């Protein structure tokens, strides 16, 4: 729910910046590391956007796979959430390059002149 509430704050700020009267579509890229179930986020989004400029907006969630970088040898590799072993040196000491964040990527809105 706190993710949905943060998203609503961002949407309200963007709407104000662009003088939008209504937000109709929202696109979010969700890294698998965040373990966000799209259905759960959609439900929380519906509740969090009620009576806001984004009420009734369609939420599109795009899942992003995990890419890690080995801190020991620098190898970058696509991986799964339960195994961070480096294919080169076998250490499991990584930082994430992709798939570790939730990113707002696009918003469709209506402005007064449309």
């Amino acid at each position, binding site marked *: *729910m706190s993710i949905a509430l943060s998203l609503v704050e961002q949407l309200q700020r963007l709407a104000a910046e662009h003088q939008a009267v209504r937000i109709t579509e929202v696109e979010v890229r969700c890294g698998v590391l*965040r373990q966000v179930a799209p259905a759960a986020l959609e439900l929380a989004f519906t509740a969090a956007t009620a009576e806001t400029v984004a009420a009734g907006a369609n939420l599109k969630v795009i899942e992003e796979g995990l890419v890690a970088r080995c801190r020991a040898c620098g190898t970058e590799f696509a991986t799964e959430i339960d195994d961070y*072993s480096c294919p080169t040196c076998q250490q499991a000491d*990584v930082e994430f390059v992709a798939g570790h964040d939730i990113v707002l990527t696009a*918003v469709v809105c209506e402005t007064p002149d449309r």
Partner: protein
Amino acid sequence: MKIKVIESVLKANDAVAQANRARLDAAGVLALNLMSAPGSGKTTLLEKTIPALVPQRCAVLVGDLQTTRDAERLDGIAAEVVQINTGTGCHLTATQVAAGLTSLDLSGIDYLFIENVGNMVCPAAFDLGEHLRVALLSTPEGSDKVAKYPTLFQPADAILLTKVDLSAILDFRSRKVYEDLSRVNSRAVLLELSAQTGLGMEPWVTWLRQQRCEHAGVAAARRAQPPGRGGGALETEELPRPAHAGPDLSQRGSL
């Protein structure tokens, strides 16, 4: 009108977390975020750890959905305790920690323990402004939890296998934990302990003191001025490395 943006949804939390960290750095406080399932022994660990760190002074921010029971247990043990009730929230946020920090006199504190809400999923996703993350796994939970909840253990700087005094009467296979950790986190220090009996507490306390030494050095370098209050003796103290520390899995597993 379509607006294209690339903006982290969690950036508001992360910005507050950075501000919390800067505030703690300025006060010379080492902050640790304790994360685990409910009942894994976080509060008991603190009840036994804080007296062992004397004369260093500790404060605790305790996160729970309801009640002040954990804060009551730690009252009189820690220099300061603040209970944060999250209501229906299943994890602490950086904003809640920022509010908690305003209640503390940071100038009188060396360590801040943030006892997160008992939960093995959501707390790991939220930076609170801590310097180090500690994940606990108690033997009654079973030896499959690293594989089931890898996101909790992957970012941990220390992993504590707690309630090891019960391992003899439980079907707990430590080897399975070490095998799973070799795929999830080979960087963290792994320590086995029982806060109840005191078994393994010394290496844990040594590790904490060591981290404070290193942090004090880093913070002092950041400030580019001589180390300040409370850190002088520790900064020059020679401390032994804790047992079981390090990534070598052959050193792991005495259960």
